[in-house]
């Protein structure tokens, strides 16, 4: 099993000009990114929506790769989104799933059927043309060039070590440095979108 920080560190060199929706990986990605204005850390507006948000970006900007760091808790709330993504077939969409098997921010309670779910199989069944699952960092890292250099949509489930938070929300480290409005403004400016 890998650590989320190591997983994201392995992806960072391949990011290039991609838009990144860091989702639950945001607190690690912020220390790795070299293109902050192409990062879209919107926090957690409503759980289950990161895949849809990233899909929307990918459809709006087919000229840019969009990399999403989703989580299994999120996608379990929106499994139907996989079907929509597969139907749309966005060639610029790279869907990484950070699977720690639990709701880490609420104390580590397991997600339903945590140890038995094969998310790559679900994605393939939904119609993703390519889907992978990794639990070891070396295998994950070795396959990244192939994953990111071919067209999407592609789904990559990565089994990671749970990092459970039990501190009251008000006492947790706030890693966000920009408000949501600013994040969207920075992205649109970077993309040359007139306000």
């Amino acid at each position, binding site marked *: 099993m890998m650590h989320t920080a190591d997983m994201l560190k392995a992806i960072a060199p391949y990011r290039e000009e991609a838009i990144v929706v860091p989702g639950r990986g945001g607190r690690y990605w912020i220390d790795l990114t070299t293109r902050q204005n192409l990062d*879209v850390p919107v926090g957690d507006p409503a759980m289950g929506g990161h895949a*849809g948000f990233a899909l929307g*970006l990918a459809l*709006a900007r087919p000229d840019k790769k969009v990399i999403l760091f989703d989580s299994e808790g999120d996608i379990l709330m*929106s499994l*139907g989104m996989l079907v*929509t993504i597969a*139907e749309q077939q966005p060639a610029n969409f790279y869907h990484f799933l950070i699977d720690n098997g639990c709701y880490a921010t609420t104390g580590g309670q397991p997600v339903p059927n945590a140890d038995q779910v094969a998310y790559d199989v679900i994605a393939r069944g939904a119609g993703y043309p390519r889907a992978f699952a990794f639990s070891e960092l070396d295998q994950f890292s070795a396959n990244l060039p192939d994953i990111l250099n071919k067209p999407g949509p592609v789904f990559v489930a990565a089994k990671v070590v749970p990092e459970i938070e039990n501190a009251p929300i008000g006492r947790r480290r706030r890693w966000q440095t920009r408000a949501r409005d600013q994040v969207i403004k920075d992205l649109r400016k970077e993309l040359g979108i007139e306000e």
Partner: protein
Amino acid sequence: MNDAAVVALSPETVLGEMKKNGVTHVVWLPDSETNWLYLLMKAELSLRLVGVSREGHACSIAAGLSAGGAKPLILIQNTGMLESGDSLRGWLLGLNVPVVLMVGYRGWTRHGINQDSAATYTERFLMAFGINYYLVESDADAPRVTIAFEEAERTRRPVVVLVGDEYHGFNR
């Protein structure tokens, strides 16, 4: 032609409003009366249809489309809007998304006496969320759709168009 057909909101009119207001993507889930509109939208090359399997998904997709510079329209039924509450709150209101939602008003009756709780709670729901809305019943009401688009842009908020003619307007 019966009276209902004379006053109905035609799907051609709805499509015309979409084009007039520069819609690029329609994020939608069909309801029982939208098939004719679907066929028109499908044939319209300037629109991309993004079908969802649950209405709440439309909110986050629309938020991403908008952030990326596209102009989405959400087309759903009021039952689905009710189900979408948290996504609407977080993704549309939370990210200040200027989007119009065309919402089929299932159960709506002009005399105000309805037998469908979907209608009972529709406007109460919108008022609770502080989302402005316009009712359209016929082609004569079509300018309200453009008003909704203009308001969404001006206020950077979602605005709803309730389609009160759902039961005859979109089918033939």
